[in-house]
């Protein structure tokens, strides 16, 4: 919810001109990476774009309640998209980063489990606070029946609210969103880490072992930066609150995927240029 009120942006549908202009920007970034760094750098950028898209898509699953949820007037977790995405994504990034030496598959799985676990724990404690602390049942305002458990909501929904608590479908959405976010963030980190481990020794004229701290921190801080950019673009797409995958706003995700791909391509180009130039 906006702090100052005012009309929310958004609406459904995509803007075809802007989408094409954006995709052209993305292709230019890919071509520029190919010219300065060759095929290996271009593949790294493709990995970064996939990671960014996973982050942008994953954010749409997370049940974000914002300020109304804190007052028990809307379903979801009572904070903003940026905070939730940062929490899940960074937890996933830490989960995946320790496993970087064990190969791509293990590290990506670690990232996904880390992000999903973070959201699972968050959702559980949110429901404990809602049910046992505030004394409100979980009821969605957007659908009448939980698509998974079949629980009915209208009888439990208080008048004048958009629903409250965290229904099971939102919980599942939160875990999926956290896993996708952690997976995407870890993928960005690993792509950059492997590139830096390869390029930095020649650039700084030092052994691979010596530059490891620089490679790890550069890749880490770039991954955090790109993660937040993609998460906030997805948040702007949602404009405020979303209940999870059953929310009508979820259908807006194609726009966020295009947006995240463009932003990741340009940010990734800059991150690759630091070692390629």
């Amino acid at each position, binding site marked *: 919810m906006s702090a100052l009120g005012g009309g929310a942006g958004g609406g459904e549908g995509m803007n075809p001109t802007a989408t094409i202009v954006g995709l052209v920007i993305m292709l230019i970034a890919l071509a520029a990476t190919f010219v300065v760094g060759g095929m290996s750098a271009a593949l790294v950028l493709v990995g970064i774009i996939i990671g960014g898209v996973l982050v942008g898509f994953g954010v749409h699953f997370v049940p974000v309640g914002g300020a109304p949820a804190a007052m028990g007037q809307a379903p979801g977790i009572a904070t903003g998209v940026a905070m939730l995405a940062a929490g899940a994504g960074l937890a996933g990034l830490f989960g995946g980063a320790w496993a970087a030496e064990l190969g791509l598959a293990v590290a990506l799985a670690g990232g996904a489990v880390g992000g999903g676990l973070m959201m699972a724990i968050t959702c559980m404690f949110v429901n404990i606070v809602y049910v046992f602390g505030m004394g409100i049942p979980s009821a969605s305002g957007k659908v009448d029946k939980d698509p998974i458990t079949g629980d009915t909501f209208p009888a439990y929904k208080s008048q004048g609210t958009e629903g409250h608590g965290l229904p099971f479908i939102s919980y599942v959405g939160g875990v999926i969103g956290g896993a996708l976010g952690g997976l995407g963030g870890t993928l960005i980190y690993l792509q950059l880490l492997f590139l830096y481990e390869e390029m930095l020794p020649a650039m700084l004229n030092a052994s691979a072992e010596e530059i*490891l701290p620089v490679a790890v921190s550069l890749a880490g801080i770039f991954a955090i930066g790109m993660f937040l950019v993609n998460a906030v673009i997805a948040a702007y797409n949602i404009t405020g609150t979303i209940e999870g995958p059953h929310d009508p706003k979820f259908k807006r995700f194609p726009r966020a995927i295009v947006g995240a791909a*463009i932003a990741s391509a340009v*940010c990734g180009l800059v991150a690759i240029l630091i070692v390629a130039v």
Partner: protein
Amino acid sequence: MSVKIEASEGGRPHNEILGFGLIGSLVCIYLTYLNVLTGTEIFSFFGGLGAVIALAWGSDTIKHLCSYGLGTGVPSAGMIAFGSGVIAMLFATKFGIAAPVAALVIAALLGAVIGYVSDKVVSMNIPVMVISLIELAIVGALTMMGLAAMAGGSFMFADLVAGSTTVFGIEIASYGSSVIGGSVLAVIFILGSIAVQHPFNACLGPGEQQDRTLMLAAECGFLSMIGVAVISFAFIGFGSAVVALLVSIIGWAYTYMEYIKLSRRDAYDWLDAKPIHEPKGGA
């Protein structure tokens, strides 16, 4: 479509603050180059002052942007500012003496793309979206660069990755004990993004006054500077770090007292409640 709501009446126009913030922070970051010219590290604290000026400008930009109602809360603007700013800043450090100007240009380009994506592809349709995200990316990049220069004494990549550590009394070069290799940037990132997103988030609402918001921004900036000054003991000389710490503490104390004065001015009423005294000998 979005409807603009004026956050506050009066105050200085945003463009004036933009100009002052841009030039002021660039000049202050360049003043850290005196370290190289004079061969000392005593001028590192200017980087922090540059960051404080950039943060005040960033708070005003966030106010400008959020007066349209983003729908996602004020902190998201601070997060995207530093997310794009850190990417631009790190690449810009490679440009040697031109690094602050390069940070400005690269951040402006990144901000323009992200602004276009947010405004048109994601259909936010906010008239000031592109220009605000350009400004915020520059604020993020300059703040990161200022605070990194304050911690490490230089804004150049070669100096920021080089550090030294002492093993059995012998000093050896170690990339792990540098500003970038030691992941100090992650701390600077969050210190800066909290400082840029907090002031307007705390002061918004009816009766918001520009001078109070900007004073809180300066106060948050100096508070982050104190943290960076403590970190800088690890990278620059003891005397220089003490100077940086003193400047930060004095700046913070002054802006904090001014902020309390302004809050009292804008408050409807003020009760100076005294702490409850425990009776002697226990209750």
